[in-house]
């Protein structure tokens, strides 16, 4: 430790600390402008942080100069004051100080300093830059004449999202911050630059003129747009969310957000929000009272229950809703209706993870925390377009690779934003993952790189695995996957030897008929190399929706109660019967995909809470037919979705900003959201509706507040045993958290797998159900894009998101495009055995030749009209990632 004094205050800090850091440590304030603590290196450009150091005739910049033993720093002298004032006078001599209409007024670092140092009239007059304001992108407005050229924006953009969209251009007096060739900004629009800017030079177009910091009330919440679960505050004025502010030092997002978090919140106040219950009469919706609507639902459910039995009713819970609401939903279905027919869209994304990892390890969730990724030595990303689907997790990968020297292996048919950083990128054919990873394991075993101790002490079934992968020689695997042998060998060596290694995967692995097996194969690979149960080393399924982890955790699944406790287990069932005071059904319920198939046949009524199967499920033409033949369909949602349009009763609900509750993010962290604004019209929270309906069904449910529901969850769910609203009020807790004193669990399977020993499953590669042929010669794969979320019911109602990405498109490789005579932007027809859609062609090399990609967010060209409803036999997850298709000129 180095000892020094600052303004006579003694302080000791680590060697290498700067004077500014030392001053912060002992509570002495030194102003700064160009310095930004989120950045690795200090900049030393603005000179506002100057201090005097005894014995040194020059003033020193506190942000760049390191401390020294015995140093005596003086921050408040006349000399320092004059020098700082001089800097401010220079800055203000070329600053368009129109604080009256500035978005940053009251929160601007320059304004604060000018006030503190009493810079009335700038001493220097003369020419000023006059660049004006640029508004030529959907999200950000740049006022160059308020820019002090501190460079924070330039540095964050390069360092945090690794985009480098902007830089200083020109020089001297003419310098400004701009994209190349002074064009309109075209980047990932994360907003990091805006959060970093100390002045009013970068503003959100979405929140402009709607309230400045001092007029806004900050309400802590969790972004509803993906499983990262970024922490932020909703900034509220006059009952409206007008801006957001990412939470600094959050272990999830550390002050960053992606474009959806930063600019997508305006869906909350969209004019399309449902405001009153609706009942369909003669094919038309008419407004109804809550009493009438819920009365009707209860009556219908009771009649159907009496006539065809409880199992002819099903329910879709929601990965968008809170844990409390999902808990009540499954409780209502099980205890009040009397069926285990409850499921949610996890079926369509990670059901195979839940099933596969439960078999291999004993529990199916991310083994590690988001923040651990940055310290992995090798990161294997497969079947996950992380930079677009989990932007904040991608930041950790960028950090690992760019700052910490980690090696990146990508196994994905598509080119991703971090592909240029990959040591090895294997672009295998969609649907051949199992062969590919068996190939990696073959190489690892052949070269003796397996972790023998780990295999011996922590696993079972190794010999069987060894036998199966023996066949998967690099040559053989190259034949199946199209990946050159050298790449397979290089990836295998890197993953097995450069430890700790972490695998990130997502729907590219799970959404196959062989999804469960794909997941188990990944688990095999990790166990084989001992890359498990340690910090920064594990198997990490990235969950898509904001609360898909939580919805699974609290039992919105047909075969388990909260905490993955099996319905089939008599003792468990008895426990829940005692807790809920009612006899519970013994048979496992139907999955989403099975319920859709049964709809109109054995299933008569469906209760859908915040899901949109009419866009999210495979083979939509079939789905529609089934949903239309139901006797009774109830949908509760914030918007009139494609599914709600088919409903008999539609119930308007509160959005995430309008309620208290918890979401569990992909790293198992249970986090709190708070009510920021009132719901529009008569919309009510899902949990209140559920209580009301359950009571009407004769099973009494009443809670004063969601925290009581969480207390009940904790009492019946061992992994949530220690969780309460009070404990997570400051910081979320990661399950397993069995009791009130347990600190939560950062990474899983430390000394022992949840199931005891980890189990190897020998798995053979199996071709996808549909493979290209003469008639349908291309492989169609589907997925998400950065700017939209799920079926777009929220993101497509956000002004900026819709403006930046308004139209469906199909990505097609130039090689195929030339063959078909298709040019970029041209309208094309894409067809499969199940249907046809029309959309624009995006000709680029993101897909390999022979593969096309369509994002599934767009109802006007719904990718799921084309996809095949073939199911994984275990997890019942559909094959969204591979089907045969053809493209023609429209």
């Amino acid at each position, binding site marked *: 430790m180095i000892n020094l004094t600052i303004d006579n205050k003694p302080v000791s800090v680590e060697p290498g600390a700067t004077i500014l850091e030392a001053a912060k440590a002992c509570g002495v304030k030194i102003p700064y402008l160009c310095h930004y603590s989120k950045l690795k290196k200090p900049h030393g450009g603005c000179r506002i942080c100057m201090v005097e150091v005894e014995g040194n005739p020059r003033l020193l910049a506190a942000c760049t100069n390191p401390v020294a033993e015995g140093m005596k720093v003086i921050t408040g002298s006349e000399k320092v004051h004059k020098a700082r004032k001089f800097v401010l006078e220079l800055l203000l001599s070329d600053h368009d100080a129109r604080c009256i209409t500035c978005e940053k007024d009251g929160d601007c670092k320059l304004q604060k300093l000018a006030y503190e140092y009493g810079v009335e009239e700038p001493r220097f007059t003369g020419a000023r830059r006059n660049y004006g304001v640029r508004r030529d992108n959907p999200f950000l407005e740049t006022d160059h004449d308020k820019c002090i050229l501190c460079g924070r924006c330039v540095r964050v953009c*390069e360092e945090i999202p690794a985009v*480098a*969209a*902007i*830089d*200083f*251009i*020109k*020089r*001297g007096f003419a310098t400004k911050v701009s*994209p*190349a*060739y002074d064009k309109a900004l075209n980047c990932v629009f994360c907003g990091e630059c805006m959060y970093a800017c100390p002045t009013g030079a970068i503003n959100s177009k979405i929140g402009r003129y709607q309230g400045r910091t001092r007029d806004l009330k900050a309400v802590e919440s969790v972004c509803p747009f993906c499983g990262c679960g970024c922490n932020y505050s909703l900034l509220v004025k006059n009952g409206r969310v007008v801006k957001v502010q990412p939470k600094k030092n959050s272990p999830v997002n550390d002050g960053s957000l992606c474009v959806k978090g930063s600019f997508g919140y305006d869906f909350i106040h969209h004019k399309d929000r449902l405001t009153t219950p609706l009942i369909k009469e003669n094919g038309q919706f008419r407004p109804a009272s809550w009493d009438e609507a819920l009365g009707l639902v209860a009556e219908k459910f009771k009649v159907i229950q009496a006539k065809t039995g409880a199992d002819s009713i099903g329910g879709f819970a929601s990965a968008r809703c809170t844990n409390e609401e999902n808990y009540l939903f499954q409780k209502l279905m099980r205890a009040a209706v009397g069926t285990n027919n409850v499921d949610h869209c996890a079926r369509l994304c990670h059901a195979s993870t839940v099933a596969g990892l439960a078999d291999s390890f004993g529990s199916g969730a991310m083994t590690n925390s988001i923040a651990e990724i940055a310290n992995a030595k090798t990161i294997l990303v497969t079947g996950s377009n992380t930079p677009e689907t989990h932007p904040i997790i991608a930041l950790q990968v960028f950090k690992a690779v760019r700052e910490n020297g980690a090696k990146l292996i990508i196994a994905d048919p598509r080119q991703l934003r971090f592909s*240029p950083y990959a040591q090895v990128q294997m672009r295998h054919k969609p649907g051949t993952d199992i062969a590919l990873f068996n190939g990696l394991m073959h190489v690892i075993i052949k070269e003796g790189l397996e972790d023998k101790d780990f295999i011996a002490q922590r696993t079972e079934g190794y010999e069987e695995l060894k036998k199966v992968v023996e066949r998967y020689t690099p040559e053989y695997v190259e034949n199946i996957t199209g990946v050159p042998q050298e790449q397979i060998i290089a990836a295998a060596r890197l993953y097995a030897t450069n430890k700790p290694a972490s695998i990130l995967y997502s729907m590219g692995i799970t959404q196959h008929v062989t999804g469960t097996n794909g997941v188990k194969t990944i688990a095999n690979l990790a166990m084989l190399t001992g890359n498990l149960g340690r910090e920064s080393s594990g198997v990490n399924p990235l969950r898509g929706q904001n609360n898909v982890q939580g919805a699974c955790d609290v039992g919105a699944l047909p075969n388990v109660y909260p905490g993955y406790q099996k319905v089939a287990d008599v003792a468990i069932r008895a426990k829940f019967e005692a807790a809920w005071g009612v006899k519970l059904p013994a048979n496992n319920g139907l999955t989403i995909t099975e319920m859709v198939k049964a709809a109109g046949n054995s299933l008569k009524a469906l209760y859908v809470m915040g899901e949109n199967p009419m866009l999210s499920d495979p083979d939509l033409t079939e789905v529609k037919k089934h949903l239309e033949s139901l006797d009774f369909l109830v949908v509760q949602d914030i918007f009139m979705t494609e599914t709600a349009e088919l409903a008999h009763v539609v119930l308007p609900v509160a959005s995430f900003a309008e309620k208290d509750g918890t979401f569990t993010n992909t790293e198992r962290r249970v986090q709190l959201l708070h009510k920021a604004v009132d719901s529009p019209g008569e919309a009510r929270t899902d949990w209140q509706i559920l209580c009301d309906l359950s009571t009407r069904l004769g099973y009494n449910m009443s809670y004063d507040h969601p925290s009581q529901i969480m207390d009940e969850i904790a009492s019946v769910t061992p992994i949530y045993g220690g969780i309460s609203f009070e404990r997570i009020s400051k910081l979320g807790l990661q399950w397993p958290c069995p009791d009130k004193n347990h600190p939560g669990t950062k990474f899983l399977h430390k000394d022992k797998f949840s199931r005891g020993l980890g189990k190897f499953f020998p798995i053979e590669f199996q071709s996808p159900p549909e493979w290209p042929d003469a008639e349908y010669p291309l492989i169609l794969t589907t997925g998400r894009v950065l700017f939209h979320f799920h079926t777009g019911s929220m993101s497509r109602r956000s002004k900026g998101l819709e403006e930046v990405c308004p139209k469906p498109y199909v990505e097609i490789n130039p090689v195929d495009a030339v063959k078909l005579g298709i040019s970029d932007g041209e309208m094309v027809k894409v067809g499969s055995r199940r249907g046809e859609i029309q959309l624009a062609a995006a000709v680029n090399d993101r897909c390999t030749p022979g593969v096309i990609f369509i994002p599934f967010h767009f109802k006007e060209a719904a990718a799921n009209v084309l996809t095949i409803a073939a199911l994984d036999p275990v997890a019942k997850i559909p094959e969204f990632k591979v089907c045969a298709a053809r493209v023609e000129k429209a």
Partner: protein
Amino acid sequence: MNIPQPLWQEIEQIIVSYPQPQGAVLPALHKIQERMGYLAEEALAQIAGHLRIPQVDLFEIATFYTLLYTRPHGDNIILVCNNISCYILDSETILSTLEDELKIKAGNTTADNKFTLQAVSCLGACDGGPVMLINDQLYPHLTGDKIRRILKEY
């Protein structure tokens, strides 16, 4: 405008002769400008991709140096010094004379594409102020008449 194949090969030669990709930036940009006249957007994107340096960083460099051009320019480039020594010797009048003669404002190109006029900071010839540089030729001790005479030579 993309970089034509033969030029690209020359640039690759330049790039491999530097141990760090950053080192190759300026020589590569010079080479492109020499052959293609200016640094077209596509050309810069190609170099950026190849060197794995963000395009905007190359643009920063290109706009920092007065002698690199990111837009097409006239057949002849006139640079007039407006730095302190020349300024004292009335470089302002020199510049406005040129603007009047060419009927354009500094920073622009004449309609016949013959001249591009630009004011710059210091041409390193303070002893000869006021000075201008046309292409590679330096003209010291300028006066209005001298300027008119010189322009006729082009």
